[in-house]
């Protein structure tokens, strides 16, 4: 007989094992879904998870997709660790892209080493500005940040839409909804000839290192940890709650904004309608799959990035809609939440009693 017993304390080993278990269960469930759809499960999973990254180009694409996911998830973990539920990273990404894109367009047909840093900075500031809206509303008007940050995503997308079909659209662009190409000085340099992976990956890696340092070595990190466990304790300790809420939102917005910069100043080099395949939302899954730990987030962003690539390969080779990728992302989150049960409970096998 199997009995479910409460654990005396959440298991630390299980804490890091459940993400792996969740991925495994996702693969099993994915295989079953493919089987029901009439594909050979192993072959389909191979197309989904192995074929896309089997060559150099594929691997570069993997890093290209993982970069914004990692960057945003790192930013989000500042919020989530301190009990602030910013789910509007997609909007902060979009707005960061708009501001940095606008600055890049200002420097149209200009060259100079100073342009790129300004463009990058503009993106971070754009993201911060946009994230400051839910933060200020939360601290001073007691609004719910989940709702506000989510709704602002749609606002930012409409602003982008308006700009690329209206005032900012390319005068020589035959009314395509996109801006002019940025000058080369406003673009993040590509790292290898013929591959699309660009210098944005260094921003993500810098964010990983900095966040690790902040989380585990600084007073701010300590305050975030305490606030995450108990807001009552944070108040009792005398931490300036409002200041911290605003700070973590700004950090999170800056990261999302930088991800937006990477999307438009990377290989694409212009603003257009669809700058992000919902990286801002998917990064929430990445943050939790990585257990809000900087190193965990690196691995999680790679795993989730594969689902983007796999969806594309599957569409091409197996005629499965690419939205299957989202199904996989959803399943990962689902199984992760489900297997979190194991943190607090364990199965006990007991022999039948006489």
């Amino acid at each position, binding site marked *: 007989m199997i009995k479910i017993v409460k654990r*005396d*304390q959440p298991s630390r080993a299980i804490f890091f094992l459940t993400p792996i278990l969740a991925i495994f269960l996702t693969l099993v469930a994915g295989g079953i879904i493919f089987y029901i759809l009439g594909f050979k499960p192993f072959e389909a999973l191979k197309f989904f998870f192995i074929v896309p990254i089997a060559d150099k180009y594929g691997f570069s694409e993997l890093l290209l997709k993982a970069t914004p996911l990692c960057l945003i998830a790192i930013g989000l973990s500042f919020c989530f660790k301190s009990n602030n539920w910013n789910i509007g990273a997609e909007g902060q990404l979009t707005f960061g892209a708009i501001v940095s894109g606008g600055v890049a367009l200002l420097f149209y047909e200009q060259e100079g080493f100073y342009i790129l840093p300004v463009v990058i900075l503009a993106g971070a500031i754009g993201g911060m500005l946009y994230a400051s809206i839910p933060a200020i509303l939360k601290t001073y008007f007691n609004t719910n940040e989940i709702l506000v940050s989510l709704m602002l995503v749609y606002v930012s997308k409409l602003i982008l839409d308006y700009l690329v079909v209206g005032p900012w659209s390319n005068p020589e662009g035959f009314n395509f909804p996109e801006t002019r190409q940025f000058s080369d000085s406003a673009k993040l340099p590509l790292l290898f000839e013929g591959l699309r992976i660009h210098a944005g990956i260094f921003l993500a890696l810098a964010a990983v290192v900095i966040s690790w340092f902040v989380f585990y*070595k*600084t*007073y*701010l*990190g*300590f305050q975030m*940890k*305490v606030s995450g*466990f*108990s807001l*009552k*304790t944070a*108040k*009792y*300790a*005398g*931490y*300036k709650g409002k200041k911290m809420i605003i700070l973590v939102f700004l950090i999170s917005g800056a990261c999302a904004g930088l991800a937006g910069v990477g999307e438009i100043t990377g290989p694409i080099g212009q603003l257009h309608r669809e700058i992000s395949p919902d990286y801002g939302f998917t990064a929430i899954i990445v943050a939790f799959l990585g257990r809000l730990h900087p190193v965990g987030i690196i691995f999680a962003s790679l795993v989730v990035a594969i689902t983007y690539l796999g969806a594309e390969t599957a569409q091409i080779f197996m005629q499965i809609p690419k939205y299957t990728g989202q199904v996989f992302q959803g399943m990962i989150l689902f199984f992760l939440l489900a297997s979190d049960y194991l943190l607090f409970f364990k199965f006990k096998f007991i022999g039948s009693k006489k």
Partner: protein
Amino acid sequence: MNTNLKISNVTKIYPGCVANDNVSLEFNSGKIYALLGENGAGKSTLVKILSGVIIPDEGKIYLNENNLKLNSPLDAKKNDIGMVFQHFNLFETLSVFENLIIDSDQQRESLREKIESIMRKYNFSIDLDIPVLNLSAGQKQKVEIIRCLIRSPKVLIMDEPTSVLTEQETSELFLSLKKFSEEGILIIYITHKLKEVMQLCDEVAVMRRGKLVSVSQIKNENLESLATKMVGQNLKTIKKKKANTASDQLIKITNLNFISEDPFETNLSNINFSVNRGECLGIAGISGNGQSELFQVLSGEILSDKNSIEFNKNYIGDLNPQERREYMVAFSPEDRLEQAAVPQMKIFENVALNNFKSSNFFNNGLINEKKIRKHSKKIISDFNVNTDNIDLKSQFLSGGNLQKLIMGRELITSPDLLICFNPTWGLDVGAINYIHETLVNINEQNKSIILISTDTDELLKLSDKISVIHKGKLSKIMNADEVTSEKLGILMGGGN
């Protein structure tokens, strides 16, 4: 008819602890039995076994020679064992009557008659048709008791019933229990309050660390002998010296108000008091009368008008807790696990929650772990926290040790004023004694204390002056040697 309840060789083992170790006891109707023990002594486990909530690993229970199989609370009810838990199991929004009939399959009308006759018999006056949330704690407990009486139980078990009651309500409860006993209901009364045992019971069984230590007649015992049995060692008696009446004023609260936006909080109106150096001001009251709000206003979790709090000639009403600490005020909140400490964090991390500028725990925004660790080691040795591992998560400390850690953290900087809220709530006698000793020492060093507590005995023992909070208002401040627990009880209930 006589009822005989027999517990025979009951053992219940949890991982890492033997909650009941081969316990055998016999009860007969007509008497009131006390089951006495510290927290964790195993008395709750034993009564949960009797009421079918827990199934023992070994042992048997006999009611009038019949071996009972108690696999669920329903089995206990069927076998005429009624139980009133420490925490009420009532639906707040349903009416009293609905709460009473909810687990019954009898006709509504006949039940109503039955309930009314029970109420008449025992002189309970509760409106059956108002929602339970409008009742006082004492009335809610009566509802629970009536719910048991409907089933005409042979055995009635009361688990620490007085923790939420006023003095008056307690004596009413005792009268009712005596009446039930005279009518042949077997009463088992679980408590760690020695005074109540002496007042109410006929026989006492003492448990310690899962074992039955002794069974004896109350008439052969006294407070000291019971305390010694319960704790297993002789306790030092704490004697408080009288405070020096001629000392300076340290803190003065003037016209302090707090109006909450939260309907479940209590508003504070026009609070005025002052505390001199070396003095302990006790604030009594039934929980939920504004103590928590008062604590938060005093600690700075709730800010107030700058001039409403004058401390050591500084106005600090608009400062947050961390800023107030710099003026040498320390705080020990009621909730150890959700406020004063973070159980999931390590001991040394919990120490860092109280952060003075001069303690240098954080330099230029960086954590100075070495410093915090050194400081933590000093606290656990100076304040007898029973561990030497400061990397231990604080959830593994017992309540007493955690409270010692918190007290140590607050006191190691020798603050001028300690504000504490129910500092011994839920602790065992040994730990309570230690905390009381610590508090007396603070006063002896000419430092002051504001002690907000729901434990009247504690207040009478430690305070120089006492006031009572009722519905967010403070009574006039009295000298502790002029008040009695009866007088406090009247004020706590809103009387004059």
